[in-house]
């Protein structure tokens, strides 16, 4: 396989590294945090630029409103807290003060999905992609590893408009190129294949590559596409691949309602109806456990993708 793990790292540290770099290169970047500076890896930005770092306390609604206001005068605010508190808790604030008002706010959300682990369902959100993608004008990005998260953090500062950037807590394989380019809205073809298309986002991208390896051993050629931008979705990449392979598996650490899978299904239904299977949580809350235990229990790993691929192949 042409992708190798260069050493496990957490995606949130990729965000921290990107933010640190932005602090040096873009004087308009400001950061706001709701009492989770260490968890979000914002310490270095804070140390380097205390005047541009705003500790708002445990008050996410005010943080979102302040971020909207800070854009007036040319600042580019990056807000940081867990994904649950970045979205559901402040949905109306994001809707009115950020999205409807067209403000250039970057909502950066760590600890998304079940891989937050032991804290359990109160802190694990599996609905955030759906919440955010439904907001008109909101760009939704879910990155797969450290390098890609860093690249995405740099890229969204250059994009004019509200962005939801979703990443996670655990250390996972780091396999995309260091200092690679990140093009918002552009799918990344990781591996070409002919029998089945696997469209994955976030932590499931590495699992998709593992699944493709297993399938290869069994004589099944899988095409693996990394969708880091769920909205706007790269329709063309999905359609082109679906036409080639004739079946699709989507994989995400999110509810199957409202996530990447539904976005892909919409594109396929409109442009090229194709059998599809969903690797995602099945309309459920998470629970306490280690990330690996939870990904296994909720069917969010390479094994689950292999099974889904075989199932969808039978439906061709």
């Amino acid at each position, binding site marked *: 396989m042409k992708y190798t793990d260069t050493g496990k790292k957490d995606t949130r540290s990729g965000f921290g590294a990107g933010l640190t770099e932005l602090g040096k290169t873009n004087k308009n970047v*400001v950061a706001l945090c709701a009492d989770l500076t260490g968890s979000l890896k914002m310490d270095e930005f804070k140390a380097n630029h205390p*005047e*541009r770092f*705003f500790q*708002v*306390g445990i*008050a996410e*609604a*005010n*943080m*979102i*409103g*302040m*971020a*909207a*206001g*800070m*854009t*007036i*005068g*040319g*600042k580019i*605010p990056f807000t940081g807290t867990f994904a649950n508190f970045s979205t559901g808790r402040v949905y*109306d*604030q994001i*809707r*009115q*003060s950020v999205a*409807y*008002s*067209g*403000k250039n706010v970057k909502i950066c959300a760590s600890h998304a999905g079940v891989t937050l682990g032991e804290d359990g369902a109160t802190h694990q959100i599996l609905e955030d992609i759906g919440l955010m993608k439904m907001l008109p004008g909101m760009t939704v990005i879910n990155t797969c590893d450290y390098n890609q998260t860093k690249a995405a953090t740099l890229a969204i500062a250059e994009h004019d408009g509200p962005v939801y950037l979703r990443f996670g807590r655990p250390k996972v394989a780091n396999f995309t190129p260091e200092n690679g380019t990140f093009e918002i809205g552009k799918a990344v073809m990781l591996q070409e294949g002919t029998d089945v298309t696997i469209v994955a986002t976030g932590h499931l991208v590495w699992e998709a590559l593992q699944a493709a390896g297993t399938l290869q051993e069994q004589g099944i050629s899988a095409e693996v596409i990394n969708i880091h931008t769920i909205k706007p979705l790269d329709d063309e990449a999905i359609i082109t691949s679906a036409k080639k392979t004739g079946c699709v598996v989507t994989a995400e650490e999110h509810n199957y309602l409202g996530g990447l899978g539904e976005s892909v299904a919409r594109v396929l239904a409109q442009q090229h109806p194709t059998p599809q299977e969903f690797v995602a949580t099945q309309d459920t809350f998470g629970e306490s456990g280690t990330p690996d235990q939870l990904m296994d229990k909720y069917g969010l790993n390479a094994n689950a993708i292999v099974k889904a691929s075989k199932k969808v192949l039978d439906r061709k």
Partner: protein
Amino acid sequence: MADIKKLEDLVIQVRRDILRQVHRVNSGHPGGSLGCTEFFVALYNEVMDRKDGFDMDGKGEDLFFLSNGHISPVFYSVLARAGYFPVNELNTFRHIDSRLQGHPTTHEGLPGIRVASGSLGQGISVAIGAAETKKLNQDSHLIYALCGDGELQEGQNWEAIMYAAGNKVDNLIVTVDYNGQQIDGSLEQVLPLGNLKAKFEAFGWEVLEVKEGNNLEAILSTLKTAKEKTGNGKPICILMHTVMGNGVDFMMHTHAWHGKAPNDEQLEDALSQNPETLGDY
């Protein structure tokens, strides 16, 4: 020194604009709009240091944020008559394809509006953000905001009020339209705010109170004092006691006209109490 007669003429004309806007479309919020007319007229015509024209960033000028967006009729009238957009556009209030949405928004690009409001409790946070950016930009201009009293029942306000004091956001003047009324009745009946002055003070704000919130000279004098108190490490709050529906006898001292438009006869009655001064649109 302010030309009070000129401002009073404008107040009467703005009242007519409010009444005619809501009557034409048979919807909107005249009560709170009429209660804050003197404040808006004073702020935009005597108090704020404004540049000609409009750009979103508003560098080098004072900025205003309306949190209780439902009083859009007074905001639109005062903005139009201050030259932000043609006065006759008030005819399009709440109509389809209009820039004058029911609640103010930047979405249709109406000059003078810097954030959408209407879903309550969000404006102080936005104003604080704008105030922090002013400081980062070393722009000594001020941020003004208006919120409703009932709106202070929203919890986000208290997050914002805590932040502003804790972080010495002292280039910010927040006025509370203290009319004591909300949709379901009086504040006392619905959910009392308790001692609002003591609450703001306990959070660390400098609090001014204007008992005659519909008296231009009283408002001007209080805003002048507020301005003088900026830059001293504390955010400033003005508790402005107003009468909902002020200037139209049958709309005063009641929450009945919070979100109701007058019919033809009521409009005629209301307008006759406020004879045309600067010319209707």
